[in-house]
C-alpha cells in the first residue's frame, strides 16, 4: 500500500516478532532495504537490532536484509523479526510429548497441522478440526494465524504447547 500523504511515499508492512503481542502494521519509506523492517520491529519489541533475522510467514529460511522492499512483493504477506533462527517446539497430548524445530515465523496453524498429523499424534480426521493449541499448562486456544515467535524471547528458544479440544456450545468442552 502506498501512501502519498504529506508528500511521502510509504509502504505498509505487516509484522510480527519477538516482543510483539500481535500482528502490527508499520510503514517504511519506498525504496527502503529490508533491514528497515528489522529496525522498526526491534524498537517495538524492545531488543537490539544486531543479530535480528527477518522471515516471511511460514518460510523456514531468513531473507536478505539488503534487498530493497517492493510493495508488490510484500503486500498481504506477514513478516517476522526475531533473534532466534529456530524454536524447539514441544506438544503435549494424553501424556505424550512430541517435538520438532520450527522457524519463529511459523503460524500456530502449521504446528497444529503437524501435531494432529500421522507424524504427530495421528488424530482422527473427524476430530481434528476440533483441536486447538494452547500454551503448555493453559487452556486458552491460541489464534491459528499467530506466529509462534511471539511467544518466545531470545535466548530462550523452547516453546511447549498442549493439544486441546475446543469449546463447544452448551457451556461444555468435549
Amino acid at each position: 500500500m502506498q501512501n502519498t500523504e504529506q508528500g511521502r511515499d510509504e509502504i505498509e508492512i505487516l509484522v510480527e516478532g519477538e516482543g510483539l503481542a500481535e500482528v502490527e502494521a508499520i510503514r517504511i519509506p519506498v525504496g527502503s532495504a529490508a533491514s528497515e523492517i528489522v529496525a522498526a520491529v526491534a524498537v517495538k519489541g524492545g531488543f537490539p537490532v544486531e543479530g535480528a533475522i527477518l522471515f516471511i510467514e511460514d518460510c523456514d529460511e531468513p531473507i536478505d536484509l539488503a534487498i530493497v522492499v517492493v510493495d508488490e512483493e510484500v503486500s498481504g504477506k506477514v513478516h517476522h523479526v526475531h533473534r532466534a533462527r529456530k524454536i524447539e517446539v514441544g506438544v503435549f497430548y494424553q501424556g505424550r510429548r512430541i517435538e520438532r524445530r520450527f522457524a519463529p515465523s511459523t503460524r500456530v496453524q502449521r504446528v497444529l497441522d503437524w501435531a494432529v498429523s500421522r507424524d504427530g499424534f495421528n488424530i482422527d480426521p473427524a476430530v481434528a478440526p476440533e483441536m486447538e493449541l494452547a500454551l503448555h499448562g493453559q487452556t486458552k486456544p491460541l489464534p491459528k494465524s499467530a506466529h509462534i515467535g511471539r511467544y518466545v524471547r531470545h535466548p530462550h528458544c523452547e516453546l511447549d504447547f498442549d493439544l486441546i479440544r475446543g469449546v463447544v456450545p452448551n457451556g461444555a468442552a468435549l
Partner: protein
Amino acid sequence: MSDLRPTELAVTADLTSARFRIGVKRGHWRKVSYVFPILVIAVAAVEPNGNSTEYFFRFELTGFPGTAPDVRIWDYATDALLAVDQRPKGSNRVTEAFKSWGNQTVYRPWDRLAGAHNNWSSGYPDLAWNAKRDLTFILEDLYGLLTSNTTAHGIRQAA
C-alpha cells in the same frame, strides 16, 4: 446529545483499527456494508472438501461495546438468515456454532443472546464478551471456526 454517538465512534474505531485492517489484508474477512447499527462482514471459510468460500454475518451493534453484538449468519442476497442447509459444515464445533436455535444468533459465548443462554459465557471468560473486546475478537473466532476444516483436509490429503 444522542447516546448513539459514542457507540458509532466505537464501531468506526474498530473498523479502522490495525487489527481489523490486517485481517482484511490477509483475506480473512471484508466489510460488506455498514449503516449503523447494522454491519455485514464476509468471513473466509474452508469447506470439508478443501474448497475456499465465505459466509456473511450480520452484526446488530446497538449499545456497542458495552452491549455484546447480536451476530447472525446471513444470506446477503435475500437479506435474511442463511438457510440451515446452506450453513457451514464440518466438526461438531462448527455445526453447533451455526445451528438454528431459539434466538437464531451464532451460538458462541461472545454473542449477545447465546452468551446468556444457559449462562455459558460465564464459564468461558476467554470467549465471553466484555466492553474491552473489539469486533476483531469475534472475527478471529469466526475465522478460526470456519477454517477449521483445513486441519482435517490436510490429514486426508496426506493419508
